[in-house]
Structures are given as C-alpha cells and as structure tokens.
C-alpha cells in the first residue's frame, strides 16, 4: 500500500474538518471502551493472563527461528506448503503463482492486515484476478475504493447512509424500492451478494491471528463466518501471515485467545476461532484441495534485538487505538498507511522507515492509555519516545520544534527562571481564558486552536502545588 504517513499533519488537519468522519468517530468512542471494561471486570485472572501472554511471546521471539522451522515441518507433514517471502514483492508474486496454478479468475478474501500491507488486491487486479473482500467492513471499503481505517473495524469511518449509497451505486441489480434503512437489510444484501461468490471462488485467502508450531495450524478469529466460508469453499486455501504470529502450543494459543476478544471487541470470545492445517484429508467431504502458508518477513526480523522488538508481541487487538485520544480525533486514514493508532505509530516507521513515517510517533499525547490496555503489555509510549529522540538526533525534526525544545531546555536547566516563567505563563493563560475557562485562540499555536479550545489553567502550577504538598522540600524521599 502506498504510504502518505509523511503528510500526517496535513492528513490530520483534513480529518478534523471532515464532518462525516467526525460523526462516525463520535459513535466509536464509548462502544469499544465500555465493552472492554465490562468484560475484563468479569475475569479476575485478566491481569495475570496479560503477564503470561507477554512471557509467551517474549519466549517465542527469542527462539523464533526454531519455532518457524518446526511450524514449517508440521505444515508439510499435514500436506501443506510454506512459502518464505522476504518482502511484499516476493509475497505478491508467490500468491499470484498459486492463483495461476489453479487457473484462478476470482479470489475470495477474509480480512487480513498483512494482505493490505503487501498491497495484494491491486496486484491481483493488475494481473487479471478479481479479489473479493468478504468481511462486511472490508467489502464496504472495497466498494468505496478506500483502505481500512481500523485494524478490526475497517469501515469504522463510514456512516450508514454512506454504506447505503455505495450499495445502491455498485449493486446495479438492486431494485430502487428495496429498503436498506436497517443494518439488518444491509447485512442481508451483502450476504446475498457474496454467497454465490464463496462457492464460485477458485482461491480463498485468509490472514492468520496465530501460527501454532506444535501442530502446524493457522488460526483465524472472526465473528461473521466469512473467513470460514472463504477457506472451506475455495479450491485452494492461501494463508498470508507475518512471521511473528507464531505461538508454540495449543495451550499457549488458548492463553492468548483469552486476551484477544476481550481486548478487541469486548466479547468473552469471538464467534469463530478456526484452526486449519493442510488440504482436505483424503476421505473428507469438503475443504480445499491445497493449502499454502505465505510467510512474510517484510522488515520484522530486523526489529529483533532492537528497542522495538517488544512491538512484535502485538496481537492486533486494536485496544490501543480504541483508547487513544489522537486516533479518536483524526481516525485511521490520517496515519497514512495500514496500521493506525499507537501500534501503527511504532510499527509503521519500523517497517517502512523513519523517513516516510518518522512523524507518526509525534501523534501522541503521551497519556499512556494505550499501554494500560495493551494485552501484551507493549510499552508503546516508551517506543514512541525512542523514535522522537531518534528523529531529533538524526535532525529530522522541524526547525520550529527544535527551537521550541531548545528554549524549553534553556529554562529547564535554570529552575528559578523556569518557575517564574511558568507562573507568569499560567497567569497569562488564565487571563486569556476569562470566565469560560477555555481558550479559543492561542498565540503561536493557531494550528492547534483553530479546531479546538484549550482549557485555561485553573489554579497553581504543578511546581507550586508540589512545593505546597511538602514533597518539594530538600531531604524528603
């Protein structure tokens, strides 16, 4: 997928003034957070499970080569094949060859972020194979010709009226008087359209939430059942997976599965968790005739052993973006590539480079909510800070920011001056806020205040309060 992460600032500005987007985002905020909180409260072991999940993935990453080889030999033992691909181009070519080998005209697809990452749909189209997205959200954005804006709810930026508009435009056989007002009507229409496609498809492509070394199984976790129809009814089943998806055993998978749905949609468990390996067995009555795992590196092996290794524990649950104030304000498209929100702000520069995506780690208020909810305890704010520091030392920060930081450090190194000037600043801001307590325009920061108010400080500075509480005294612990 073509990245526009370098223009995050402009993207974000556009997003903030996009009325349709803001309407859609306003609906998202309460849902995910409340559901997660409710379901987590029902499982007393949840925090312990997070520790164990983190430990499993750390162990895997330290022994990744061993587990990948074991996974491969078990896939082969079950009659399947593993294709190792260093980058997107190799992966696209490999998948295209598999399509050619069965003379494929159409391909049904379950939701896969890795397939987005390698730009699979465009490539298939260019080579005469029609890709059909079957997850309802993916289907909607395919009709609208846009990329996903969220890793588990790809059409979260789209309002119902816009879905209806896209259906009416693209489903030309749909009688104009057929009602589409209810979500149920929309779902039924998609179900009807896609049913025959599942049966007609030559190849079914899915992603993978996990790869299990012990058994050579790939795992998908879904709610709609589209991934299962995709992989059961196609002639060939192709699994597109990045190589950090490995877990050692079914027991390890069970542990992490207890974290995934709860963190993602706030469900106790997703509707369908499906483990597959190999083609249909000789006496089976259905299932694909061949089974391929396309195993993609695309920069991940180089993240091992670096300060970004922890990011490879990510299970793509989306909790970090569901709790992120920046994501909630600008949506996923502003991030300019496949992965948005806090996890995207770390992963994107790691995978496509700091030149293209070095700005993204700045898209944070460092409120720390992402780390609080990340089931795999990934220290997202810390890694964003690493990138900021790197951006600064590599001189990629804009001169305005550098000047600002330089000024701040001048004051910060002179405590008395810092105290006096923040006191003065706070008093000034209070005066600007007047009775409303909010400041609609801030000198030198119109980029910030043209679209939002800044709360005026209400009382004393932090330093003043700290001193009053007695902690500021010399000699106290």
């Amino acid at each position: 997928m073509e990245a526009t992460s370098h223009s995050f600032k402009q993207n974000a500005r556009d997003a903030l003034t996009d009325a349709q987007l803001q309407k859609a985002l306003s609906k998202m905020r309460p849902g995910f957070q409340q559901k997660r909180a409710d379901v987590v409260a029902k499982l007393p072991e949840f925090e312990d499970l997070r520790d164990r999940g983190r430990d499993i993935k750390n162990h895997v990453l330290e022994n990744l080569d061993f587990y990948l080889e074991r996974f491969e030999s078990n896939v082969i033992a079950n009659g399947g094949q593993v294709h190792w691909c260093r980058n997107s181009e190799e992966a696209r070519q490999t998948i295209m060859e598999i399509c050619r080998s069965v003379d494929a005209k159409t391909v049904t697809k379950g939701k896969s972020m890795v397939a987005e990452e390698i730009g699979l749909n465009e490539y298939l189209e260019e080579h005469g194979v029609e890709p059909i997205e079957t997850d309802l959200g993916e289907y909607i954005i395919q009709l609208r010709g846009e990329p996903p804006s969220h890793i588990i709810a790809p059409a979260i930026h789209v309002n119902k009226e816009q879905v209806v508009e896209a259906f009416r435009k693209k489903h030309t056989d749909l009688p104009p008087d057929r009602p589409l007002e209810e979500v149920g009507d929309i779902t039924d229409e998609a179900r009807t359209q896609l049913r025959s496609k599942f049966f007609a498809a030559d190849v079914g492509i899915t992603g993978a939430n996990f790869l299990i070394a012990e058994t050579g199984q790939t795992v998908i976790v879904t709610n709609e059942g589209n991934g299962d129809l995709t992989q059961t009814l196609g002639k060939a089943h192709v699994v597109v997976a990045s190589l950090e998806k490995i877990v050692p055993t079914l027991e390890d998978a069970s542990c992490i599965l207890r974290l995934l749905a709860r963190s993602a949609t706030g469900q106790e468990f997703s509707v369908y968790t499906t483990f597959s390996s190999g083609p249909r067995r000789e006496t089976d009555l259905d299932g694909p005739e061949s089974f391929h795992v396309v195993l993609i590196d695309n920069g991940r092996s180089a993240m091992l052993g670096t300060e970004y290794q922890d990011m490879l524990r990510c299970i793509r649950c989306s909790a970090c973006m569901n709790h992120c104030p920046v994501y909630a304000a600008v949506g996923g498209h502003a991030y300019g590539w496949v992965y948005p929100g806090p996890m995207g702000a770390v992963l994107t520069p790691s995978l496509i480079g700091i030149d293209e995506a070095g700005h993204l780690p700045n898209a944070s208020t460092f409120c720390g909510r992402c780390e609080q909810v990340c089931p795999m305890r990934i220290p997202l704010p810390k890694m964003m800070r690493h990138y900021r520091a790197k951006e600064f030392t590599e001189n990629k920060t804009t001169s305005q920011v550098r000047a600002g930081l330089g000024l701040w450090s001048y004051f910060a190194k002179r405590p008395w001056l810092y105290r006096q000037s923040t006191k003065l600043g706070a008093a000034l801001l209070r005066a600007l806020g007047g009775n409303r307590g909010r400041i609609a325009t801030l000198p030198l920061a119109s980029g910030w205040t043209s679209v939002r108010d800044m709360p005026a400080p209400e009382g004393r500075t932090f330093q003043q309060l700290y001193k009053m509480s007695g902690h500021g005294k010399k000699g106290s612990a």
Partner: protein
Amino acid sequence: MSEAREQILAGIRKSLGRGRLEGAAAEAVEARLKGHARVLVPKRSDGDQAHKVGLFVEMAEAVSCTVDRLESLESVPERLADYLRRENLPARIKQSPALEDTVIPWEKAPALEITSGAAVNEDAVGLTPAHAGIAETGTLMLHSSAETPTSLHFVPDTHVVLLRESQIVGAYEDAWDMLRQKLGLEPGASVPRTVNLVTGPSRTGDVEQIIQLGAHGPRRLHIMLVKD
C-alpha cells in the same frame, strides 16, 4: 530450500546475536513444546459436572444461542420438529453422516426430511454433532472428518448441534486434551484439516458498530443438550 528461507532464518539469528539453537538450549525449547503445559486456566469453570453444564448453558445463551435440554435421544425428532415450526423454518435437514450411526427414532417426526452429506447453498438447516462443549465461554468445539464436513457448520442458515452433557468440559485446554486423546495425536502428528471453536451465531458490528446477527454464517445456533 529457498534462498529467501535461508536468508530470513539467518537474519533472525543475526538479530538475536546467536547461531542456530543447539545443545541444551534447543533441548529446553523442545521440552517446552512436548510438554505443552497449561499456562493459566481461569477458575470460573472449576467445579462438578453440574456446574460446568450450568455455566455452559448460561454462557451460550448470553451470546444468543438457544439451548433445548432433553432427557434422552428419544425426544430429538419431536423437539427438533417443534423448534423448526416455531421458527418458521423448513422441515428439510442436512445432517453430518456421523449421525447416521446415532440411534435417533426419526420415525417419530415423519414430517422431517433428512439427508446426509456436505452442505450446498440450498441447505437451510444443518444438524451436526460436536466434539465438546466448553463451559468457560459457552463455546462448541467441532472438527472436520470423513463423517463431519465443515461446510455444515457455516453454510446453512440454521445450525442445530446435538451435544451430550458428558461432552461438556470446563476450559479450552480440556477440549484440546480430549481431542488429542480421541485422535491419538502426538504433538506434530496429523490434526484434522479444520477445528472450529464456535461461540454463538454469526454476527457483525461493521455498520456503525450495531451488532447484527447472521452476517455470513448461521443466523441461528440451536443446541440440543441431551442427558447421558
């Protein structure tokens, strides 16, 4: 083996600052894999069989399954016919061939028309056995075999599952152990092509996060739970 494969593995080892795992290090990883120890099993399903059955039913109903509890297989035909009538569904059923061997007195509900095999698009009602019911989240474990085609779990609008109370276990791990036992699986030996964990009927939240049942898979999941 391919050049890409060798390069990726070499890249991983280089990043980790070591060569191929050998000796004691390799044995330790091997032992962890073979031992497939349980990590952490939540306590909620601990208790006797009655507790597990109760929890299974409660959790399954919470995700929009319907559960019909039967004294014996004897009453399956009439109760199933009742259910189909109530829901306004056709009396034509496609069942897993595995159920041909189960003694169900179908003659008690002559209106039901029953055939066996994999699902085709016209099949509106599927009837299948399950490998296990998992109490902790009201989840069914089903798997493919010569007698239990996977398409029956996804294609028909209505999925009816026949489950015995003794098949209900507490946690996912218990169901995996049962599967290993049933199929005589050693780690690494051939697993079924597909194992499905199913928790409720199909749903989507992709339009404005409004939960809608019946996305692509079954709109209804009806569990006939039979006493042993």
